[in-house]
């Protein structure tokens, strides 16, 4: 980029999937009717006092441990003051002076096959704000406080990114980690994970440039586009001899450009002070070690295990672990069928194809592992052929049929019963004396015809290898 390098840091907000909000017992649920999950605490009625949800602290420590952070033994909350109608108390309870996690790191894979370590500056806990719905018709704004006090973790990286691809790799792995830890559902379209990008440009070796913070980035694609746009914009300003101002810019994905946000010019003076309504947290080693011991296996650990223990390829292991729902499904099919390799083939083949064709997202995938395992066993044991297997899988995907009934109805079970095969051959020979004569006089074509007749008698359920061998034997005698 004309001799410039891009320097970026990320602030990611993840909504935690606790049952209740961070400071009150209202349900933490997306999509309820407006203002039905609210109480005096999350609407900041006078005199209401917050009480901290223990599960939020536990989830924060889980993520901190997974991202190699130091856990702050004496952590506390602070008050961040600003006026905006989505914030009924006119302050947000957050953490500034003693955030729960500090000094972590995450290793990301680079496109050239190498790796890079991204520093995690801190992770802190805070309360989400409410939702504003603007009505352009009458110049009014409606406020819904269902989201007010939903627990958030803000994950602040060091300014260690130099390309959009690195940012996406980091976000992908962070999302994967949050999902495997079971602490966030990571539905970007519902805003349960949101990323702000701080970006500046500089000539190599120079001090950091003036940064812009980009907000309203609602998809990985939007993030990549916004980064390209903002880097080009800043370089253009500098190339024309202009100066950059530190600002917050809002990305408009439809127009493919960003606009400065003017509303909060003084908003960076948040006048933080220690939150008087909440006691500090004291976290001992025993508690931390308890959480460490209960951490689930993470995606990269699963990948290594699948390759080592099941003999999967790196490619297959990568597809299966890309989302927790998929790896959970794979493990369940493999466990019930006892056939890890065939289960992996099913997940990376037919199931991926079905998801692509129907547009089902991994987070919405719900298949009956038991039914699929049943079919995997049948095909591995040679009781149905590959074509029948695919058809039966499809019937499970689309109509959720009972596979045992389905394969029986369809006559898919291969007959290995030598008596049945012998009887069919005997009947076919009796009914087609001409073809038998042709075959015996050296016309090979006749064999195919007879074979077809036998398979028909067995209703397609004959094992072709076995039938061929038996027929050859009978005709040769």
């Amino acid at each position, binding site marked *: 980029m004309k001799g410039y390098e891009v320097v970026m840091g990320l602030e990611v907000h993840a909504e935690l999937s606790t049952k*209740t909000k961070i400071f009150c017992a209202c*349900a933490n649920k997306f999509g309820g009717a*407006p*203002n039905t999950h609210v109480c005096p605490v999350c609407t900041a009625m006078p005199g209401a006092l917050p009480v901290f949800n223990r599960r939020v602290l536990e989830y924060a420590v889980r993520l901190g441990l997974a991202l190699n952070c130091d856990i702050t033994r*004496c952590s506390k909350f602070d008050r961040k003051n600003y006026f905006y109608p989505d914030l009924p108390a006119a302050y947000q309870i957050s953490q500034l002076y003693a955030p729960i996690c500090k000094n972590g790191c995450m290793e990301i894979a680079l496109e050239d096959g190498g790796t890079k370590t991204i520093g995690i500056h801190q992770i802190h806990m805070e309360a989400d704000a409410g939702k504003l719905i*603007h009505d352009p018709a009458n110049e009014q704004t409606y406020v819904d406080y269902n989201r007010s006090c939903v627990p958030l973790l803000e994950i602040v990286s060091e300014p260690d990114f130099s390309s959009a691809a690195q940012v996406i790799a980091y976000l992908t792995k962070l999302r994967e980690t949050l999902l495997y830890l079971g602490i966030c559902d990571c539905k970007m379209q519902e805003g349960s994970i949101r990323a702000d990008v701080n970006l500046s440009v500089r000539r190599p070796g120079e001090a950091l440039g003036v940064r812009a913070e980009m907000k309203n980035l609602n998809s990985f694609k939007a993030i990549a586009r916004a980064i390209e746009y903002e880097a080009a914009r800043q370089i253009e300003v500098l190339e024309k001899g202009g100066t950059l101002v530190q600002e917050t810019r809002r990305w408009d994905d439809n127009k493919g450009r960003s606009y400065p946000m003017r509303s909060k010019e003084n908003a960076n003076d948040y006048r933080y002070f220690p939150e008087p309504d909440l006691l*500090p947290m*004291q976290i001992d080693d025993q508690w931390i070690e308890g959480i460490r011991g209960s951490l689930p296996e993470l995606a990269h650990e699963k990948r290594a295990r699948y390759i080592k223990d099941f003999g999967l390829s790196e490619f297959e292991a990568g597809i299966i672990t890309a989302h927790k729902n998929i790896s959970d499904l794979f493990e369940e099919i493999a466990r019930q069928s006892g056939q890890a390799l065939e289960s992996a083939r099913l997940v990376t083949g037919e199931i991926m194809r079905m998801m692509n064709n129907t547009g089902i997202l991994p987070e919405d995938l719900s298949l009956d592992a038991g039914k699929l395992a049943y079919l995997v066993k049948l095909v591995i044991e040679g009781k149905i052929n590959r074509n029948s297997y695919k058809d039966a899988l499809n019937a499970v995907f689309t109509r959720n049929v009972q596979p045992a009934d389905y394969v029986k109805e369809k006559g898919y079970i291969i007959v290995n019963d030598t008596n049945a095969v012998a009887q069919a051959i005997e009947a076919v020979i009796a009914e087609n004396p001409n073809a038998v004569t042709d075959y015996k006089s050296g016309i090979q074509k006749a064999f195919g015809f007879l074979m077809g007749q036998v398979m028909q008698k067995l209703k397609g359920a004959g094992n072709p290898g076995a039938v061929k061998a038996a027929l050859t034997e009978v005709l040769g005698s």
Partner: protein
Amino acid sequence: MKIDKALIDYLEELSCLSLSEEEKIRLTGDLESILAAMDKLNELDTVGFQERNHPFDGVNSFREDIVLPSLERELVLQNAPQRNAEAFVVPKTVE
């Protein structure tokens, strides 16, 4: 710290207040005496005392993650200066 007009104007904006000139002059005096009281406190010898995070002793006051009924919406909105059937209504906020 000196309380001057520029600082009062800044605080006015941060606090979303709209003050008359008269109020600003009065506030300048009030804030100066508040700061003087704080300076007085700073004269105390605190050597040997540990810094505290909170005026109360005690740590770890937690709640279990169990849902309790929320407030009925009609009650929530009852005292709102402006509302519709399901939400608080505020003047248009520009982003």
